[in-house]
């Protein structure tokens, strides 16, 4: 696949002295969905803002489709669409006007059919003549997406697309992302949640305190991270783990009311049925079972301990 975006040694030091990005190297291929995963303040928005021309980098080099984002900014920016983290709209205009404005701003001639289809896809067509201050927060977010897609970009940046969004909009958003991908659009999104990255992305980049700690295919990452945890809620608290279960790597929590079993999610045999049989045989009643995934914190712990 051809490269659509490449960053080399991109560093950003804000005027405040804050180093937001440190020597970032990244190559994105055409048509992929890439998730930037990192905690608050990691530098995700800064990275996107540099590529889109909102923030100037301190040192480094970025090219989009082979065009330098500074020297050939017109060619580079023409194919980029950005949905920023925060909603910012001129609330006195109408939905249709603001979307048409965006298309014009990006140098494209009027295309009423395309805009109509776009607004329909985002369930905004009925609201096309509404002023933006009459819309709900979720609808405003849709408008932000419509504006970003108004000029038919080849690369779409979604900065925390699901923050403060309800289940329906979230599902719509993912459907849209998949449809765009099918059309060959490259999508780069940021998120705090592993599940989101796993669900959507082909590759994941983990960023923390301005450093790209790791870039990995989602499947590979999940494999490496493949620890899952089974929590068994006990009917009656236990003082200690009975000797009959001693050969299982179980942990008892402080109150004695939960047994925790960590296992490899990718193993073909997780031994869970066997474990549950043993627990039953030991005469222990349980009321519920929970499984959970590694969290972002687990990734960082893993990274620091060199396990990933």
């Amino acid at each position, binding site marked *: 696949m051809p490269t659509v975006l490449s960053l080399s040694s991109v560093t950003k030091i804000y005027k405040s002295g804050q180093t937001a990005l440190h020597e970032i190297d990244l190559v994105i291929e055409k048509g992929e969905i890439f998730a930037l995963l990192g905690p608050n303040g990691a530098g995700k928005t800064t990275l996107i803002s540099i590529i889109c021309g909102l923030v*100037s980098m301190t040192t480094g080099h970025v090219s989009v489709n082979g065009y330098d984002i500074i020297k050939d900014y*017109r060619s580079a*920016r023409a194919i980029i669409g950005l949905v920023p983290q925060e909603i*910012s709209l*001129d609330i006195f205009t109408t939905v249709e006007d603001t979307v048409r404005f965006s298309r014009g701003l990006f*140098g494209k001639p009027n295309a009423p059919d395309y805009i109509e289809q776009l607004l329909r896809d985002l369930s905004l067509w009925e609201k096309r003549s509404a002023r933006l201050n009459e819309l709900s927060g979720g609808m405003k977010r849709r408008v932000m997406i419509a504006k970003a897609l108004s000029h038919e970009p080849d690369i779409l940046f979604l900065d925390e697309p699901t923050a403060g969004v309800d289940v329906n909009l979230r599902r719509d958003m993912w459907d849209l992302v998949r449809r765009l991908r099918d059309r060959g659009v490259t999508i780069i999104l940021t998120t705090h949640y592993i599940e989101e990255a796993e669900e959507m992305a082909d590759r994941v980049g983990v960023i923390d305190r301005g450093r790209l700690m790791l870039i990995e295919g989602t499947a590979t990452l999940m494999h490496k991270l493949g620890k899952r945890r089974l929590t068994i809620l006990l009917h009656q608290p236990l003082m200690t783990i009975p000797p009959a279960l001693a050969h299982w790597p179980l942990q008892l929590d402080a109150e004695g009311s939960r047994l925790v079993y960590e296992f490899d999610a990718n193993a073909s045999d997780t031994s869970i049925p066997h474990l549950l049989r043993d627990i039953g045989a030991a005469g222990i009643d349980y009321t519920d079972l929970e499984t959970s995934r590694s969290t972002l914190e687990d990734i960082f712990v893993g990274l620091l301990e060199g396990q990933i």
Partner: protein
Amino acid sequence: MSGFNLPGIWAIYRTEMARTRRTILQSVATPVITTVLYFIVFGSAIGSRMHQVAGVSYGAFIVPGLIMLTLLTQGISNASIAIYFPKFTRTIFEILSAPISSMEVVLAYVGAAATKAILIGLIILVTATFFVPVQIMHPAWMIAFLVLTALTFSLFGFLIGIWADSFEQLAVIPSLVVTPLTFLGGAFYSIDMLPQPWRTVSLFNPVVYLVSGFRWSFYGSGDVGVAASLIFVITFMVCCLALLSWVFRTGYRLKS
């Protein structure tokens, strides 16, 4: 894509003009009412007790000055708000991320602000003809001064809008610098009427040159030569452009 982003310029220009249409009452009615009040107070009440100034009735004498005053304040306020507002609402991110050059952005915003200022200037001119006999000896020069002044002070307003970080800052230059200069700029009197040393001091007020040149295009005479007026407007415009290109080169107050 390369070259000129005409659809982009047009999109900004049209949106700005649409804002004018939405706020037609404040945009047009306010300056017109203000001007009519000036005519009533200065033209009729005071003017009726005054001799002719520079060969024309006092009412007619103040018309070019009033139009100039409006061009200055309108150009500055239109353009400064036009760029300050997207900064304030953060919608400017879209313009910064678009394939449009800084000068194209300036052209669109300043063009729209100047268009509005010129329209209002012309409306005032028409209004004035209902009150006083207005005569335009050099119409081509009159239009040239009108357009140049509107553009120049819209550029200046654009700079203020970029510099301002708050609504207070947005208002401070117009009220602290521009209004005094325009009132002392010979809009309502000929600087010959001033005693020394104020007459000489006035020659350092840029607005004197604007009003004088503009009045010359109406009645054929002004406080200073028309060439001096023209040189002043153009010099000021070049200064604004130079400052703007520095602003965009460094990303001053636009990019972090």
